[in-house]
């Protein structure tokens, strides 16, 4: 099986879907001729024509609205928002329109748009190229929310998202496009030789709503998504504690069985995300875990997250959860 980095895996998913389904159309800022500022759509315009893969005006609201309308009329648009930080001009179209159309029309209309967007920090992006706004979409019924973490699940989840008849917000951890990133900015490996970078050339899919058990253990359940999955892997190693590491993959709907099963086993839980703590998706996870597993819990559910501040530029390593902070939280769950 070929080794692919995450960009290549995403590109492969798009390429395959363009081949399989004529209704798939890809557009966004700089995705056409240039192939995207992160190169995710590289070569696709050339291969599939500029009527299938094209550039747009610099207008996230217009992109979302156009995609929504195309979806209503039978197409399956896959659009890129260049950075997740720039999804907010499209927020109304997403939360008030895309999310509600099927329900509000009594099932007469729906719009299967996939919105891909690079999210998260670690690239010195400062306030507006580092945000990870997933929780701001998880509160809106009608949307599915996906966050990939490896080349393998990037491809499989993206294919499922495109094939899904509901609108999907698809977050890509830009920090992991070219390597897994274990939290040390000075030691940044590529995906070469990583088992999750073995990516089949052909079509495959990963069911939305299912988590991935990244590592298995007995003493603590660590829940993460996106880039934090790898940082947690490192943290678990450093902590020396035997942990289940659950890579959530889908945030809405999330994998209740995987999580309750694990927490019932371990009795301890740490949730990790990059976004600010208050009302991050970690809050929902913690609230739900204590609702469902209260009597099995041996210690408070810990959240390790970005601080409740804008994302900084020079001091981003003090902001993003690193292995040390996560390992400390894992250890705290073991005292009681």
């Amino acid at each position, binding site marked *: 099986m070929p080794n692919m980095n995450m960009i290549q895996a995403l590109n492969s998913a798009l390429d395959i879907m363009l081949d399989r389904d004529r209704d798939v159309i890809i557009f966004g800022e700089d995705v056409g001729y240039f192939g995207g500022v992160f190169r995710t759509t590289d070569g696709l315009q050339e291969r599939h024509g500029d009527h299938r893969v094209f550039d747009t005006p610099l207008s996230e609201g217009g992109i979302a609205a156009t995609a929504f309308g195309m979806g209503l009329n039978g197409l399956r648009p896959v659009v890129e928002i260049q950075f997740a930080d720039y999804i907010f001009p499209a927020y109304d179209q997403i939360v008030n329109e895309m999310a509600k159309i099927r329900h*509000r029309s009594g099932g007469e209309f729906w719009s299967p748009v996939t919105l891909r967007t690079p999210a998260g920090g670690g690239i010195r992006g400062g306030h507006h190229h580092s945000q990870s706004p997933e929780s701001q979409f998880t509160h809106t019924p009608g949307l599915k929310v996906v966050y990939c973490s490896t080349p393998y699940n990037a491809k499989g989840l993206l294919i499922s998202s495109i094939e*899904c008849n509901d609108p999907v917000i698809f977050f890509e951890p830009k920090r992991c496009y070219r390597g897994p990133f274990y939290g040390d900015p000075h030691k940044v490996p590529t995906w070469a030789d990583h088992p999750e970078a073995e990516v089949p050339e052909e079509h495959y899919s990963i069911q939305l709503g299912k988590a991935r058990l990244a590592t298995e253990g007995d003493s603590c359940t660590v829940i993460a998504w996106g880039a934090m999955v790898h940082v947690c892997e490192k943290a678990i190693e450093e902590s020396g504690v035997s942990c289940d590491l659950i890579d959530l993959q889908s945030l809405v709907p999330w994998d209740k069985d995987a999580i309750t099963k694990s927490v019932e086993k371990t009795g301890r839980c740490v949730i990790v995300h990059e976004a600010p703590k208050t009302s991050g998706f970690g809050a929902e996870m913690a609230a739900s875990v204590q609702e469902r597993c209260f009597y099995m819990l041996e210690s408070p559910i810990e959240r390790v997250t970005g601080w409740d501040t804008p994302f900084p530029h020079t001091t981003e390593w003090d902001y993003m959860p690193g292995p040390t902070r996560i390992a400390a939280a894992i250890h705290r769950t073991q005292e009681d």
Partner: protein
Amino acid sequence: MGSDMKESKIEVPDAPFRPGEVSSFESWTWEPGDLSKPEATTCTYDETAHLANGLVRVLDDKGEASGEWDPDLDPEVLRLGLEHMVRLRIFDDRMMKMQRTGLLSFYMRSLGEEAVAIAQTMALNQDDWIFPTYRQPGAQFVRGRDMVSMICHCIGNEEDNIKGRQMPVHYSYRDGRFISISSPVGTQFSQAVGVALASKHKGLDEVTITWIGDGASAEGDYHYALNFASVYNAPVILNLVNNQWAISTHANFATGKGNFATRGLPYGLASIRVDGNDFLALYSVTKWARERASAGLGATHIEVLTYRAGAHSSSDDPSRYRPGDEHTKWPGGDPVLRLKDHLIKIGEWSDKRQDDLESRMDSEVVDAYKEAVKYGDLANGPYPSSDTIFTEVYEEIPWHLKEQHDQMMEE
């Protein structure tokens, strides 16, 4: 606290007339026959500048049709248009009455603007897409929707095709290619461009028509729509319905010192202003825009000049912010009367036939509402089952909604 005390120079526009003042519309100097009609399938957008700076009218005040824009319609078509407009007006009246007795929660009339959706939809093909606001329900009559089903939606009963999920007047009518109405104003305008592009991707000769209010044109969606339509040469008809008011806010707050009609031109879009109370002009302009789109020349931007004769909605009391009789001063008059007068003028109609039409429509509406309330109404139920809260949020019901559904049933 506070800045030092120089006098504030903030300037705020006002409506031209407020309660207690006498409205007059002297800037209306446009007459039918004024404007030439460029060839739809060849003219460039700047060859429409006179149409955006003028006003396309066909019917004069005496009911006479004239000028290049006269669509020369078969009287049968005109009578059908008249019938739909009368149907809509009587329907609206009935719904308002029912609203007052609590059978529905809320209502919005098309009063004074009946011609807009009806003439424009009649000028289109059956498989063209309609993306309306709450002020264009009349399009559904043109597309043959059963009135009972419309009422069932408004009164939110068991038979409401959208299952009581949205407020009244938020129709969805897929069979008529009439796309679900949404409350956030403006959003449909930019979405319609996507609908049109999808038709284009399928290689089909389908045009999409959409509308936005004078007020809503200040939303970003208006700009997105014009830009995307121009960039991708979309077969879409972009109507800005300038009915002078956005609730209590006059169109002055949306135009500033400019105007609406010419806004399409710098985007490279053919642009027209049309008398929105003139059935013939509306029909003609829309047909022209459709031809143009179908020939691959892209979108047309149309300012539909009209007046919201009624309250904004059943929750509104316009006498608080405008002269109560302002609509009677509107130079465009009443679209229903104007078409009726024209038909009489050309010997294809009579007051007697009008009376007959009105009573026929009356009974149609009465019959329809009597049937509709059999399936329930908002005051008395039965309502769509509470299960419908959880269905069609997603294509399939996910586990957490199943769980919540069960919880609701238990409690």
